[in-house]
């Protein structure tokens, strides 16, 4: 697999193909498997993603602690805001939906991780459905997202314990942005700018879940991460470019993660988890989980 997005973008543009094409070719070569088999695996992932967005929007799920659940359905059927009826609101609903399913021990695709699993399916399926794109295009987009995530894993990190939330929802947003630009007909280089524009907006984001549980703020971080991905997509497709090359932006994410205080790396020792209310809720909810499990 590629270690630099610049190399993948250069190869794709030299061959006049998409990023997903060079990603699938590289994967087939690395793993010694035919492209068709890789696409089949991505098709199964897509089916699970669609299952999770659908399940979460039904609105009847609660997490183990009871801290999260039911908010996706509010975006679907609740009172309108200024963005009612737009793709933006649909994306927020789907991102919350997947994370609510995750928090309730439902089945999701950890892409890139379980805690950041909402952004990619929300952005890709909402944009594809709005234009009635065939699943083939979504499967290709997932291949492009996999390439972007693989480069982030190689150069920075995909773990909240190592790099904070920027490494989980930040990576998910970057993957979604680059993949969506390709799916909507943008060039490989536009995908690169979309990734950079998205990641620059996620830099420094801490991982501070209440009680160490993948619930709060994780569920909402996926929705706001998806919103930043939409901003990156919209700017890149309008022709906006980002002056710092995409691989260098990813390197910054890695550097920020490595120097981030341990309190902000999934330990519940800082941030929202360490607020008076955060500590109280975590304490109360853990007691509740223990009681419900007898």
């Amino acid at each position, binding site marked *: 697999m590629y270690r630099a997005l610049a190399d993948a973008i250069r190869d794709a543009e030299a061959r006049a193909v998409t990023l997903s094409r060079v990603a699938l070719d590289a994967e087939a070569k690395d793993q010694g498997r035919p492209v068709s088999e890789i696409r089949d*695996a991505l098709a199964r992932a897509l089916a699970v993603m669609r299952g999770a967005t659908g399940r979460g929007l039904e609105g009847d799920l609660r997490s183990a602690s009871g801290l999260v659940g039911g908010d996706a359905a509010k975006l679907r059927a609740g009172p309108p805001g200024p963005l009612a009826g737009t793709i933006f609101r649909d994306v927020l609903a789907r991102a919350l939906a997947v994370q609510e399913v995750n928090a309730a021990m439902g089945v999701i695709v950890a892409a890139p991780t379980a805690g950041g699993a909402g952004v990619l399916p929300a952005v890709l399926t909402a944009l594809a459905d709005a234009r009635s794109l065939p699943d083939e295009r979504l499967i290709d987009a997932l291949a492009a997202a996999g390439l972007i995530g693989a480069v982030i894993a190689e150069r920075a990190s995909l773990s909240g314990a190592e790099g904070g939330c920027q490494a989980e929802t930040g990576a998910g947003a970057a993957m979604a942005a680059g993949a969506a630009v390709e799916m909507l007909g943008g060039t490989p280089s536009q995908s690169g700018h979309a990734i950079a524009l998205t990641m620059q907006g996620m830099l420094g984001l801490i991982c501070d879940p209440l009680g160490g549980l993948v619930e709060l703020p994780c569920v909402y971080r996926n929705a706001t991460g998806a919103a930043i991905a939409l901003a990156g997509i919209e700017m890149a497709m309008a022709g906006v470019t980002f002056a710092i090359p995409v691989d260098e932006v990813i390197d910054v994410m890695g550097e920020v993660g490595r120097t981030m205080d341990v309190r902000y790396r999934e330990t519940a020792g800082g941030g929202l988890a360490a607020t008076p209310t955060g500590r109280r809720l975590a304490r109360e909810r853990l007691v509740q989980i223990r009681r419900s499990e007898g």
Partner: protein
Amino acid sequence: MVSLLDIIGPVMVGPSSSHTAGACRIGLLARGLVGGTPESARVELHGSFARTGEGHGTDKAIAGGLLGFRPDDERLRDALDIMAREGLDWRFEKTTIDDDAHPNTVRLTLSRGGVTRTVTGSSLGAGRISLTRIEDYPVEVSGNLHTIVLVAEDRTGSVARIAGILAEEKVNLATMRLTRRARGGDAFMVIECDEAPSEAAIAAIERLDWVRWARRLDKVSA
């Protein structure tokens, strides 16, 4: 090397790849040591598994793994109820194994059909796991391939003999590691194979009079 399918996956029951999917895989891999669902089990949770395990369903995930469920099986949610319904005597405790242990570690003492085995496993992140101790032997078993574990007397030609049995089965060996406590004492062997060895092959290995016991641990990676 990072694979694209590692990034777009695994498909799993939430909420945490380390505390849920990885925990399930440890149970799933460990049950092979007693050849199936244990009748009794002591599950000792250490570190972050003990502190945040309940909220992540770590106990349910380990129980589900011990029942033979995979990380994407929705029955994980109900694993503790299933355990109770089947009358299995499994106890969950919090402990400190030792200060150097990985934060996501569990020690399992499993019994089935008169055999009891103790195993320690850690969840390393993103669903990857490692069994780090089986009985008193330090080991490293990832479950990424089909694995045979066995304890045998330390004697000349033992490796060749076992390799021969597997070759007859057309099982290709990927890695083989030998740990022994003293020269001439017992040795612990971990053999990773590309194909799943048959029960007959494991039985043939166990029939060698210098082999104390042998088990097949089925691959648990996606």
